[in-house]
């Protein structure tokens, strides 16, 4: 799973498979972090302009 796991090999299989995984996880992580931080800022500012 991580390059420091002893069974890790720098080969095509690991790079493509784990690359895809970490890519997806990064997007989800960044996306959620952005949402949470922005929500905190909006809440502090009392910003309530948007409407669903």
């Amino acid at each position: 799973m991580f390059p420091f796991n002893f069974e890790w090999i720098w080969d095509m299989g690991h790079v493509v498979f784990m690359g895809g995984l970490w890519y997806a996880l990064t997007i989800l992580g960044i996306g959620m972090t952005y949402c949470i931080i922005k929500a905190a800022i909006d809440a502090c500012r009392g910003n309530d302009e948007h409407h669903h």
Partner: protein
Amino acid sequence: MDSALIPKGVKRCPFPQFILFIAIVGAVLLWGVYAMLLCWFKGLNQTNMNDFYGFALWIWADLAVIAVGGGAFFTGLLRYIFGKDELKNIINYAVLIGFICYSSALLILAIDIGQPLRGWFIFWHANVHSMLTEVAFCLSCYFGVLTIEYIPLILENRQINKVPFFHHLGHNMHEIMAVFAATGAFLSFFHQGSLGGVAGVLYGRPFAYREGLFIWPWTFFLFTWSAAACGPCFTILITKITETVTRKKLVKDNAIELLAKISGWMILTYSIAKTADTWHWATVTVPSLGQTLMDFYSNNPFYGIWILILEIAICGFIPAFILITQKGRKNSAALWIAVFLAVTGVCINRWVMVLQIMAIPVLTFENWVMYLPSWQEVATTILPVAYGVILVAFSYRYLPVFPNEPELNPIETLPPEKEKAVEPSVELEKELKPAEA
């Protein structure tokens, strides 16, 4: 009693009735939990699995719920990426159903493995060449996506939404939902496919084995395709069941019909592809391994050629033809039959690709082995259904799952005495037998 939590503009059944309903389903849930604990504490000897059936009812249930849960990713893809705006009225429910399906799948897997405490080995010591590894990774990640898609709906609860932070969080998540949906579609494509790959790569089992493209056997693509095709049918089926139970129209016809139309064309193309795959496998692959098609469908008490006909013709082409015609989609009975058949078809496919593989002898001096699940296996398989019903019931009661509901079911604002004078009996019945869920 809980009226402060119920969304504005909709009517829900009295609280005691709701609790009674939850208690009944909860009893079933507890039965499943008891069986689950038996499996965890006493081991898998509680099942009727054996050394011929390493994969059995649970793995089928897993594959089946993931297939029918495919409605979430495909509807999300159509809504957020292809911009099919009509689907905004059903997407919440599709996400909720997907969330239930995927959490159920993960739970079943946690019961199914022999050493549940070592479950994390599949991530930590991952063999990147195993289809099951790909399944585990993508399934877990996609469950994360579904959770992210479900959270904004929870945040729309009347009371939660009053908290400014949650209000803004829900809004912000809606804003970038397309990014999450795209990631979900990417992950879904791979794990749905890998589940097909799980069977397709078994080159020691001629019934399962398929040639393919690069590292992916044809079953990889067929599974993704069938999940995308039949998943929306499950969403429609559950929506229809919910509408029947609540006695309300919850989703506008245009959303259902669009989803049904797309699903119909997907099922049709899938059925053609599946037929071609079966044909090639039966006429080229199987004979090259010294066997004939009928070897897999004879000399046993259950698996006959009927199962292949049922899967492809009756549960494939028939629903496809119903759904691609406007007449079929608009006819309520036909729509019901079509979505039911499509869901049955994909479940039969998963059954065949798990249990029939195990049943068929490969060594010439072995025989077919049949299997019946133990009550513990059945109870743990029903457990997620009960859990799903409860989660749907809570979500329906307290969250604005169906944006169309207030519009389709306007609450009478007439004064009570006038209301009674106009339609006393009907109103009385409404009061006594309102929404169950």
